């Protein structure tokens, strides 16, 4: 079956999926007594949106043949994130790690990833998650497409390779959805509706442990230290601060009738439109 489909694209597809390791939001909460943020033992996880990107890449490979490479830029420990994707059946993994990469904004990140993708040889499709939950920018996918000068689409929930070798995507918009079509090579970002991630398989898990993961730095990508990381970033974070916590909490007591009446009055006093 796979072979049948493969003639569709007339070549073996190389799909690169970009993943990022991010701090887990689960361990961050507001202490209601002191009104401060508590961030205890923050752990790193794979950006939740990127699991959908991995799933999309694996489905694409399973359907049309070829291989999937997971790519990440991050500190040495980001290797763990790559191993997690290998355990799902990703074929290869590449880590971009260099002291000089630290502090990259989306410009520098997408440039670094783009150079790495160019180095990986012909890549037909690059898949990113919708956004990363730390920076929440959603800029790396489109930025990557610009650096690679490739067509792209965002928020895809369905991907299909047509007979002529073109990619058709259904993408979610603020108003509904759209169907777009483009030639490969291309870049897409995907949303949750693309399909739920599979579970790691035993065979893949074993392989994932042993698999060698190449590590590339700025020099290997022919990038000057001034082009990457903080140095290569156009935006600069000048201040990081906690948002003012909501500490004027008021509990509304009484039976449901009384509670409804009190709440309505409070909301009217606060001039909520339409009340």
């Amino acid at each position, binding site marked *: 079956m796979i072979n049948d489909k493969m003639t569709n694209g007339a070549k073996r597809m190389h799909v690169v999926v970009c993943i990022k390791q991010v701090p887990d939001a689960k361990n961050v909460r507001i202490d209601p007594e002191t009104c401060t943020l508590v961030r205890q033992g923050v752990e790193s996880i794979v950006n939740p949106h990127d699991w959908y990107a991995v799933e999309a890449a694996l489905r694409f490979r399973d359907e049309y043949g070829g291989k999937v490479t997971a790519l990440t830029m991050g500190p040495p420990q980001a290797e763990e994130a790559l191993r997690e994707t290998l355990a799902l059946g990703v074929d290869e993994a590449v880590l971009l790690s260099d002291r000089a990469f630290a502090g990259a904004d*989306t410009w520098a990140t997408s440039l670094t990833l783009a150079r790495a993708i160019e180095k990986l040889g012909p890549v037909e499709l690059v898949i990113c998650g919708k956004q990363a939950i730390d920076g929440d920018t959603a800029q790396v996918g489109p930025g990557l497409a610009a650096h690679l000068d490739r067509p792209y689409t965002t928020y895809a929930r369905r991907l299909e390779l047509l007979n002529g070798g073109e990619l058709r995507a259904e993408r979610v918009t603020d108003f509904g959805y759209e169907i777009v*079509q483009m030639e490969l090579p291309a870049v897409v970002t995907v949303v949750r509706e693309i399909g739920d991630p599979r579970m790691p398989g035993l065979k893949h898990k074993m392989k994932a442990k042993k698999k060698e993961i190449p590590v590339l730095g700025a020099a290997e990508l022919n990038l000057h230290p001034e082009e990457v990381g903080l140095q290569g970033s156009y935006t600069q974070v000048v201040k990081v601060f906690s948002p003012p916590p909501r500490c004027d909490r008021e509990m509304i007591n009484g039976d449901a009738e009384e509670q409804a009446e009190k709440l309505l009055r409070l909301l009217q006093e606060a001039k909520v439109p339409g009340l």
Partner: protein
Amino acid sequence: MKAIIEEEKCVGCGECLEVCPVDAIELVDEVAQVDDNCTLCGLCVDVCDYEAIGLPEVQTAETDDLESYRGVWVVAEHHDGAVHSVSFELLGAGRKLADKLKVELAAVLIGDQLQEGAKKLIGYGADRVYLAEHPALVPFNDESHANVLTELVKEKKPEILLAGATAMGRSFIPRVAVAVETGLTADCTGLDIGDDGLLYQTRPAFGGNVMATILCPRRRPQMATVRPMVMRKPEFDSRRQGVVETFTPSQKSINSRVKVLETVTQDQETVRITEADIVVTGVRCLQKAENFKIIEELALLLDGAVGATRSVVDEGWMPYSHQVGQTGKTVSPKLYLACGVSGAIQHVVGMQGSEIIVAVNKDPSAPIFDVVNYGVVADLFEFVPALVRKIKEQRS
């Protein structure tokens, strides 16, 4: 590059170790030391009570002629020719910036047959509207719109460029930023001009758990996408005068390698959750899909939108476009009414920017009560119908 510790200020309390997501900090002789794992995320900077941690400064190359970039631009979004309200909100924010800098405020409209939209933008505060029209620029196409905007920016050189942080804005503005080689700050909630004349862009990060202020000191334009519903929409003044300047994009810009085959509009009957003043969210505890009706009834009554937690979407009761939270949408309405929501952090990060948060939950220890302004411990099957009755009574 890594975070910088001022050793004389560090007291060795270890708070920073706790928050470091990459374990890059350790205490050596009671002084924090940062290793190469540091990603410069800044979480430790915020948590340090002794201001002993800082981030290094950037030294990127400067845009050649920084001074020749002038004016504040708002890229207007439109749908079937109707300008999106976020664009008017941005004109309100842009006006303040332009006045502070004593420069012109311009809007950009890309598409076809947009004269009406141009007039509206002037009425909402634009001094000038750059109008790029061509039949091939409809429907919206990321690539061609990015090309046209890039061409326009390169020719006219604005110092600041703002766009809505909508699905559309967040999709094509990043391409423009890379093409003109400048920085872009995503999803801002605060904008101001500093004494140094730079644009101070403030935005939530880490799901709203921290705020960051970001500058783009050495490149132009300074670009930002801005979250809808945060900036105040100015009053419309039909007598305001402005210039409509047509811009003819090159054929090369209009061409797109991406073909838009079909654009489908759905969900017209309910207000979109990212644009509603009021969002009413229900959860799985509503047992059956039909019970979700009481949530919908309340939302409809308030002219609001229906939000959903992930479990509601997983059950198929509401489409994914209604999901609020980490893997859904981020909303910041005037009122967020959470009915039965437990308050899992993955949900909270999508709504904690709301102006007023009200939660109804029968469990007084539900974590949602940590983030509310008003908490109601009640069974929602009693409370919500009671609230609906009261509102109806008052209105009649």
